[in-house]
């Protein structure tokens, strides 16, 4: 029994049907961790992107090294680090929060690149055109660069959202009851890992296919030449 649901081991099919609600509870946790991790990644990534693009080398260089460091080290170790080290400095977070923070931290290294690439892709031409028209730089940013950058940024960010979702099972090591952890517990108790783990695989496949299709749809819907301004 888990989360108040009994399982029925009379047949594989009955077993699968009886544990489905339990897995869906785990799935809901997976979704929450994904969304929270994504939000953290978007915010931290933006901060990193700004720091990396800072005019002063004193700021941009450490930011670049930090970004490379985050990108080149495993999520699992980063998660352990946050989980065990933060409390030593008095910051005690629930496991779920620590997990989402670790996801966001790991992916901020990637999202910061998306921000930068999105802005750089618009390129010098547009900047120069804006300068030639004597736009103030704030105006250039909000009216020329951003409307063109956002349609480029959103699909790439969508792909990272899907990646984050696939990394959520790592959070099981700090006792977060996301879908894989739930399936593993069911397996531990029933000695039938086959059914719950295969179901988790199937559910993941459905979620990523749906999410990827959503990203593709978004990509085709967004105007490539930039968002229209009001």
């Amino acid at each position: 029994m888990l989360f108040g649901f009994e399982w029925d081991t009379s047949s594989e099919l009955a077993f699968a049907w009886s544990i489905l609600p339990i897995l869906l509870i785990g799935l809901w946790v997976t979704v929450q961790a994904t969304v929270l991790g994504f939000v953290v990644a978007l915010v931290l990534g933006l901060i990193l992107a700004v720091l990396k693009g800072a005019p002063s080398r004193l700021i941009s260089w450490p930011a670049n090294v930090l970004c490379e460091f985050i990108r080149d080290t495993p999520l699992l170790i980063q998660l352990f680090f946050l989980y065990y080290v933060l409390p030593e400095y008095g910051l005690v977070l629930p496991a779920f929060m620590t997990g989402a923070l670790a996801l966001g931290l790991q992916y901020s290294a990637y999202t910061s690149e998306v921000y930068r690439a999105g802005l750089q892709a618009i390129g010098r031409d547009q900047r120069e055109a804006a300068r030639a028209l004597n736009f103030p730089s704030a105006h250039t940013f909000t009216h020329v660069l951003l409307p063109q950058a956002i349609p480029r940024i959103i699909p790439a960010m969508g792909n990272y959202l899907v990646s984050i979702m696939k990394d959520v099972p790592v959070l099981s090591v700090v006792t977060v009851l996301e879908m894989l952890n739930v399936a593993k517990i069911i397996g531990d108790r029933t000695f039938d890992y086959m059914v719950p783990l295969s179901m988790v695989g199937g559910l993941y496949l459905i979620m990523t296919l749906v999410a990827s299709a959503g990203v593709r749809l978004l990509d085709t819907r967004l105007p490539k030449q930039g968002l229209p301004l009001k």
Partner: protein
Amino acid sequence: MAWTEYLTPLLQGAWVTVQLTVYSTIFGAILSFAFGIGKLSPNWLIKAVSVGYIEIFRGTSLLVQLFWLYFALPVAGQAVGLDLRLPPVVAGVLALSLNIGAYGAEVVRGAIQAVQKSQYEAARALNFTPRQALFGVALPQAIPEMMPPFGNLAVQNLKDTALVSLISLGDLAFRAEQLRNFTQDSTTIFTLVLFMYFGMALVLTAIMKLLERFVGRWRHASN
């Protein structure tokens, strides 16, 4: 315990991590080519198998795949009377290779498709068979294009090896967690381990850059 005393067990773990990375990157590369080319095959069966492989392994989580191979496969084997219990190292290398191979296959496919149509036309005009055009004309041009994304995937693979510690394989992550359990000195241990992974990633990146130069050396010939 001084931090230098952590080094011996951690380096033992790091050596396991290196081996896991090397084996799974090589197997992963083989899978990448097999299924990346397979996805472009005119034979519908080969194409369907390749698409299926790529979608399943990209569409599910590595940890799910690892657990499935390690925990679920033996159960499935039992049901049909086979002993499919894999030693952790086999399950680990297999899961890592299959996972990274699926991502690599998309890189291979993309790079082959990016070869200009005019190159295939020249090959056809010279009466090359489609196979000769693929292996003699398209692939040698596509491989240098694959190298930057392959470099990223190799580093991704290195990072992913940490997950095999969860099926009690004695890699760097496993040793770190063991040491932490024993000493409770989390800050030192995990800082050390982060830097060790970072160092390995830098070395791996440098190796992949060298490889990139090597496979694309015709591009750098100068007068």
